[in-house]
């Protein structure tokens, strides 16, 4: 419960007296045990539920594959998202093709589900110059590296959609750590003022690299910050894909109805390292924490139990699915590894619409004419 005291005789009125920040206070529809504890509002059909599960399995396998590829030296540093599948898959599945998606370096599950090719994502992590291209007719932005900076872009694209009467939302993914940056504040404030159809989707995975949220802010939640801008905010179970999807749909509807932005805090956890260059054992009780989340709140597990109970899923389907996604991932990897390598000259392209004289000249400095060139063939 949230309460503020407001009296005339003590001057301080905005002190918060109590706030329930326990897991049980999160908006939840599907419990960790796979039971329906909330209302589906007649919106979630079986086909979608099965697709949710399939997508989560796909991206989890993709993630694990990527870690392996990095270990084998076939990819650069990689940022895994295992544990956050419900948040990313559920939110991305709520989108429609014309929406604008602003991922961070950890949101390729969302990008893939929205239509990014896995081969492209591999290329990105292989350091390829063409790793950030969006599929045509979709607006999947390059993964954003400088923390929180994409949040204001998602205000801008949404604002343009609104001005152009296009019925699209923009969604900015960001982390708990990102909520400390000034850009977080400026983005939410702008979105509030211009009532842009922007969804600020925070995956609060509890850590910004090594920093737990308790050290990131004295505030207990991120959702409560929506009140600072008089925009709606919500704190949900980010491992419950139904809650994520339903919340997104509601936020999207509000956005498209001209009622402006929403801040969603999806409480979740990354099971593994911040990136493959990180060692989580240095800063947290990695084993027990990770095990606790895996065992007690895993997003895939609870949906599988639910689907099985509904008679919508079984061992055979699971085996088939696993085979299928592995095949898809392998095919994507073949595509990525057989994709023409970036050439040194590529760096001189697309700096400007028309290359400057510097680029033209420097390109020739790089690509030296063959020493043989004077010798007639």
């Amino acid at each position: 419960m949230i309460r503020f005291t407001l009296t005339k005789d003590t001057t301080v009125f905005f002190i918060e007296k109590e706030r329930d920040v326990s897991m049980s206070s999160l908006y939840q529809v599907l419990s960790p045990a796979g039971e329906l504890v909330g209302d589906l509002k007649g919106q979630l059909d079986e086909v979608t539920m099965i697709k949710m599960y399939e997508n989560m399995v796909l991206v989890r396998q993709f993630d694990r594959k990527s870690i392996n590829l990095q270990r084998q030296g076939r990819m650069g540093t990689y940022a895994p998202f295992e544990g956050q599948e419900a948040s990313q898959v559920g939110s991305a599945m709520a989108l429609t093709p014309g929406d604008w998606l602003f991922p961070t370096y950890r949101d390729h599950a969302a990008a893939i589900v929205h239509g990014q090719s896995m081969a492209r994502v591999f290329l990105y992590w292989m350091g390829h110059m063409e790793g950030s291209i969006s599929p045509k007719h979709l607006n999947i932005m390059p993964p954003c590296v400088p923390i929180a900076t994409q949040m204001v872009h998602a205000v801008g694209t949404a604002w343009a959609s609104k001005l152009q009467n296009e019925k699209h939302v923009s969604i900015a993914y960001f982390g708990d750590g990102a909520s400390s940056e000034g850009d977080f504040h400026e983005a939410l404030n702008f979105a509030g003022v211009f009532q842009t159809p922007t969804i600020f989707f925070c995956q609060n995975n509890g850590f910004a690299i090594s920093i737990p949220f308790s050290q990131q802010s004295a505030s207990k939640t991120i959702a409560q910050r929506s009140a600072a801008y008089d925009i709606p905010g919500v704190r949900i179970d980010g491992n419950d894909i139904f809650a994520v999807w339903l919340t997104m749909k509601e936020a999207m509807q509000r956005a498209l109805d001209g009622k402006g932005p929403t801040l969603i805090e999806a409480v979740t956890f990354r099971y593994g390292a911040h990136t493959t260059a990180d060692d989580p054992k240095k800063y947290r009780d990695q084993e027990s924490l990770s095990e606790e989340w895996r065992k007690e709140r895993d997003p895939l597990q609870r949906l599988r139990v639910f689907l099985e109970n509904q008679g919508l899923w079984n061992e055979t389907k699971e085996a088939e699915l696993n085979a299928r996604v592995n095949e898809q991932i392998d095919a994507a990897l073949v595509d990525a590894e057989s994709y023409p390598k970036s050439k040194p000259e590529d760096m001189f392209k697309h700096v400007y619409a028309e290359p400057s004289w510097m680029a033209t000249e420097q390109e020739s400095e790089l690509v030296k004419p063959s020493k043989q060139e004077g010798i007639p063939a």
Partner: protein
Amino acid sequence: MKRKLTMIQAITEAMDQKLADDSRIMLLGEDIGVNGGVFRATEDLIHKYGPDRVVDTPLAEAGIIGSAIGLAMNGKIPVVEIQFLAFIYPGFEQIVSHAARMRYRTRGQYHVPMVIRTPYGAGIRGPELHSESVETFFAHVPGLKVVAPSTPYDAKGLLIAAMEDPDPIIFLEPTKLYRAFKQEVPEEMYRVPIGKAKVVQEGSDISIFAWGAMLRVAEDAAKQIERENGLSCEVIDLRTLYPLDRDTIIASVKKTGRAVVVHEAHKTAGLGAEIISIINDEALIYMKAPVKRITGFDVPVPQFSIEDDYLPTAERVKDGIMETATF
């Protein structure tokens, strides 16, 4: 009867005409709406085009520039006003890490057609941080273009060209010249090409490179020197600071063999250094003397009671010319 405008009027007209001409153009900034901008560059435009196209924003430069990036990627052409150049810093990350790189990162799929206009430079008795001339910060960022007009005519033509350019442009307006003089400015839309310097005055003995408010100082010095010492100065207004118009620079020094660069930015790592280096690269053997830099000093721009002592003067430029000429 020819019509004369101040630089600020020319700038307003450029925006007014492009707003009328291209429905994608949007102006954004602090106090640019009903107030018409602190220098009145956007006077009345909100009344003509409405608050959706001339937008008073909250006081937050990262928010302004960052949301303008989003607007630009999704079909708009934002023209941002930053109240004074030093107040661009909160949006520096957005400019350097995003605006300048979006085309590159997406291999041309998305780009950021955006103009960031901002008054710059000293000499108007402004408070602290109202007088900076830090064009270097932007001329070191591949993906940006940097423009600085010195006349009403060029201001209008360059600003129109900037608003039609597909890449992000930092458009530096010399505060001191906003209302310093009037010039004939055609009523119709015209473009002054970005990337081209202008030979303001031809000459044979020495080349003087300048831009923005320093152009007039350079011209002054050149006139005096011609009168007093009979030296023929070629005065060149660079106009675009990134990418620099190397051909014009080199053609001039090959003719004169001597050069002075005048800028109000700090000397160290100012653009004077880049101009010297271009000359070093391409025309060293033509040079009869070291290129002289007459610049702002390597100190923070001082409080206004002595800001004129910080700025290059015609006197200092003349000394530089004579030093070069008599080397």
